[in-house]
């Protein structure tokens, strides 16, 4: 029977294909399982060198199997094996330490420089908001309660006495305020995440959040300035506030970048433009969280222990100068790249 001769030959050759390649697949699978769990350092040099060879062999097996075999289970196995190999070999190209180093030396300042227009718009909006808040509370002090939520006001309001306001600035009530600082840290981080994340709605919410933040600043400033404590409040705020307000401004800028890129994608498609802006903005946002952590530390430790106004101003100014130098003056060039 010619039929059975032909089919038997096909069956034989496919069986020997699998028998011959199976050892390679298994070896690739065990190596992959090991490198997915532990660092590539766990492999010997030979194993490391064999990884791409085994990967290509699995890919070629997949091509052969798709073209000649009708064994669905075999093809599914090879597809999943090749996909795992592809993600591993073409996925993580840098070690965690290199990534972290790159982030601090290049990515973070680079992202902030890339966002410079949005950052200074955002700083401008904070200033405008602060002026508006100051003016509103100055004209009618009922605005104060509307602008500042009672949970953040900490008992301060336009009717507080000068002594009470001063005691908040210089008081050593460490017990209450350090918990308060942590609360503020999470509050500020959430404000910044909001300013960033809501940016996709054409940047409008980000602008509003930044303006509102400025308003709160202006409102607080007004009640202190009205009692002649403006300079002292400036010191109290600036020790951590320069870092913190800068961070919130950057978060708003990141949100604005996403919103404006979605609204005006230029030559890219809207999706691609959004994805591109999203990555720069996300890098900036991690930086924002780090800045807020710094601000929280300064607030928790520095504010209640350093009482002198001059020291407060110089720490706050120093931090601001540090951030500006770091973002705009530090330019690392990696070898082989322009």
């Amino acid at each position: 029977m010619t039929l059975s001769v032909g089919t038997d030959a096909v069956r034989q050759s496919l069986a020997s294909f699998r028998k011959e390649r199976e050892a390679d697949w298994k070896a690739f699978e065990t190596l992959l399982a090991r490198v997915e769990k532990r660092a590539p350092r766990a492999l010997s040099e030979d194993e490391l060198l064999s990884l791409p060879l085994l990967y290509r062999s699995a890919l070629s097996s997949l091509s052969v199997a798709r073209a000649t075999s009708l064994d669905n289970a075999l093809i599914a196995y090879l597809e999943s094996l090749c996909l795992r190999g592809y993600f591993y070999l073409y996925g993580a190209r840098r070690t965690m330490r290199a990534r972290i180093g790159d982030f601090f030396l290049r990515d973070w300042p680079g992202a902030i420089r890339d966002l410079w227009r949005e950052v200074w718009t955002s700083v401008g909006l904070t200033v405008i908001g602060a002026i508006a808040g100051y003016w509103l509370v100055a004209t009618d002090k009922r605005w104060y309660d509307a602008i500042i939520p009672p949970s953040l006001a900490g008992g301060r309001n336009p009717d507080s006495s000068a002594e009470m306001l001063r005691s908040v600035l210089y008081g050593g009530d460490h017990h209450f305020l350090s918990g308060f600082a942590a609360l503020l840290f999470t509050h500020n981080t959430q404000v910044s995440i909001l300013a960033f994340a809501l940016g996709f709605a054409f940047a409008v919410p980000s602008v509003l959040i930044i303006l509102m933040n400025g308003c709160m600043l202006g409102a607080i400033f007004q009640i202190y300035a009205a009692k002649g404590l403006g300079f002292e409040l400036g010191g109290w705020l600036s020790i951590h506030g320069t870092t913190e307000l800068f961070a919130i401004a950057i978060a708003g800028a990141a949100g604005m970048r996403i919103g404006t890129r979605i609204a005006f994608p230029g030559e890219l498609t809207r999706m691609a433009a959004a994805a591109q802006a999203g990555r720069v903005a996300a890098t900036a946002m991690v930086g924002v969280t780090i800045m807020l952590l710094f601000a929280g530390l300064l607030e928790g430790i520095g504010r209640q222990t350093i009482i002198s106004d001059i020291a407060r101003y110089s720490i706050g100014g120093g931090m601001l100068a540090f951030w500006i130098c770091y973002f705009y003056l530090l330019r690392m060039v990696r070898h082989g790249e322009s």
Partner: protein
Amino acid sequence: MAKAKPAKARDPAALIRPLVTPEGVDLRVKLADAGTRASGFLLDVVIIVIAAVVVSLVIIFGLAGLGLQDAQPLFIVWIIFIFFLRNVYFIAFEAGRRAATPGKRMVGIRVASRSGAGLTIDQVIARNLMREIEVFLPLSILAARGSAGFADTLSTVFGLVWALLFSLFPLFNRDRLRIGDLLAGTWVVEAPKVALVEDLSQRKDPFAARFQFSAAQLDAYGIAELQKLEEVLRRDDYHALKAVTETIARKINARVEPIDSKAFLTAYYGELRAHLERKLLLGNRKADKYAR
């Protein structure tokens, strides 16, 4: 790309996307469906909540041990920890080598870059920060209002609608993207670990040799039916085997005792596959029984 043909959720082929490796092989990734992703996310939430509760208990007992005057630093650590747990958990795991949180790993899915290039850490950060407004923001506002005792109907409804709108967003686009995926340029694909199983056509059944098939009998079916038959044989369910045997026997005019179902199907599978593979080698991919 496939704009002409709207994707149907029920059709599994609608979730397959081309992924051509630099070696020129199309790996055809399958996007994870909404149900799988939801269960992965719920598993993650459970893990986070358990971790938070355990740490809180340790801290409470730590407080009792230390006495209350030292409570303040621990309280700060606790607030920051809970905040970081939520935000860092997803980022750290997805930036890792397997690009999946434990929950995702359990259901066999992972994050990948839509461009096919390696997933970068800023993409992971972007997609996870967006989760903050998609899920946690409305829920935390609701929780805060509820605990303060002024959760009125309007704000509750607003919060729930907001959360629903964002969590159902993946159902309304072709690639099953969350807002975060959209911004980060990522998608979530299936990456199951598949074990290599035996080749059914190499199975030695002592009774299979009894069955011989003519060319006409083997021409009755195509590749689609062959793969269904493979599924049935691997499932090895007696009633399914019997039903399939009856159908095939009727179609190809063979007489089979019910007791011989498995042997018959094994024999027919082996012969049919060899027959179709031979055709394949000669350049004829017979897709199903209607093809010639």
